[in-house]
């Protein structure tokens, strides 16, 4: 039996197409940020969390006179406490998808999720 031997040129060719393939995969997958949560007060950013990389559940204290606390968990974020009278922020529950937002109006604290794969252009209601 004859053993097939790859020529040097063939190797280069295979390597080249492999690289092209890898490059294309990166091109069409990156940067697909699917869940960066941005916490803002009065429209100015306080902090941000990459919900995709979040691997444990934690609570953070945002403060303000309403003692706002947020709960960050893998893939989702929510208001867990606020001393505000309406509690709309807490009742909104967890948000997880790009384009979603939760807001504490009295404290002017908002959390929005950004990413270029928005499921909706806007929310009414």
């Amino acid at each position, binding site marked *: 039996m004859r053993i097939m031997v790859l020529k040097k040129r063939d190797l280069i060719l295979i390597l080249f197409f492999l690289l092209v393939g890898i490059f294309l995969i990166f091109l069409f997958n990156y940067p697909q940020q699917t869940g960066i949560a941005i916490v803002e007060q009065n429209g100015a950013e306080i902090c941000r969390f990459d919900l995709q990389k979040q691997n444990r559940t934690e609570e953070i204290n945002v403060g303000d006179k309403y003692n706002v606390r947020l709960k960050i968990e893998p893939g989702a974020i929510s208001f867990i406490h606020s001393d505000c*009278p*309406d509690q*709309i922020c807490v009742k*909104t*529950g967890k948000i997880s998808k790009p384009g979603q937002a939760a807001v504490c109006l009295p404290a002017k604290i908002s959390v929005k999720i950004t990413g270029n794969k928005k499921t909706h*252009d*806007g*929310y*009414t*209601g």
Partner: protein
Amino acid sequence: MKKNKNTILLLSSILLVIVILITAVWMKIGKKSPSYECTNFAMGTYIQQTAYGKNGEKAAQEAAKKIGELENLISWRINDSDINKINSAAGSEWKTINPKTTQLLKTSLDVAKKSKGAFDPTILPITSMWDFGGDNQHVPSKTDINNFIKYVDYNNLRINENNSSASLKLHYMGLDLGAIGKGAACQEAVSAYKEKGADYGIVAVGGSIGIYGSKPDGSLWNIAVRNPKKGENQELSIGTIEIDSGFVSTSGTYEKEFTENGVTYHHLLNPKTGYPVNNGLVSVTVVCDNGALSDALSTACFVLGKEEGVKLLNEYNAEGIFIDNNNKIFVTEKLKNHFRISDSQYSILNNGVK
């Protein structure tokens, strides 16, 4: 000779691959116009904007400025606003106001008349007693409501377009444009996008949405309708509306409510009784080509209920979605093909009126 031919073939195929790659990169980058997102608080609510194109940032900033200016004209809470001036002079004199305020009052009166008072811009004496979302929210006494409900009557709001002035006929009367202002703000933003040359954009003022232009890939704008129910395991939206232009507003019980002695009271008050409307509806969404109208109509339709509400929408060539507390959704005829339910707890009522 043969070897040379092979090399040429190889080189040209590599070249071809490189050309394809460059095209792919170019398409990937080229099809997206730059976008500018900003959020801020005004008109007592949260404002989210996304404006696209090289003028996107300028356009969004202009929109925020225009919304601020509108608030300074029409908020009854702001000293020296047009509405505050009219309220302070209620029962005494006419006040000269900005033509923008006059136009908005004119639209308010039109919806008030056509809805037979289901929407009433003179509802302040009642809304200020309930103070939904405020530090003093509570159920007012029956006596207080009986004493003040007679000052809620749009027939006693007079406007004069010729010299841009307005007056309230009786002392104790007061204007509250809370049910039309957010939609009007969306309109201001859309006109700013146009003026400053944004390619396309979307603004959300609270639950009201304004759309400007169309997306370059030709897809429709998709607007999620919020789930009236809230809780851990609830989806945030019940479905999606797809439209190419216009304005969308929603009035829902869940927006502002409080519980006192075991009873939950929501902010959508009947101007005739002074109490929250209790007709089985939990939210009404209206789609229309005018922002102020979509906002006022969503409140009017909520108060009127489905049957009368649909008739009112017809008069304005507007479309709507009515959701009741049995998870049933009624969608007006023209909107039916543009609305999709995503939450299986809800179902569409087909045997409705119209």
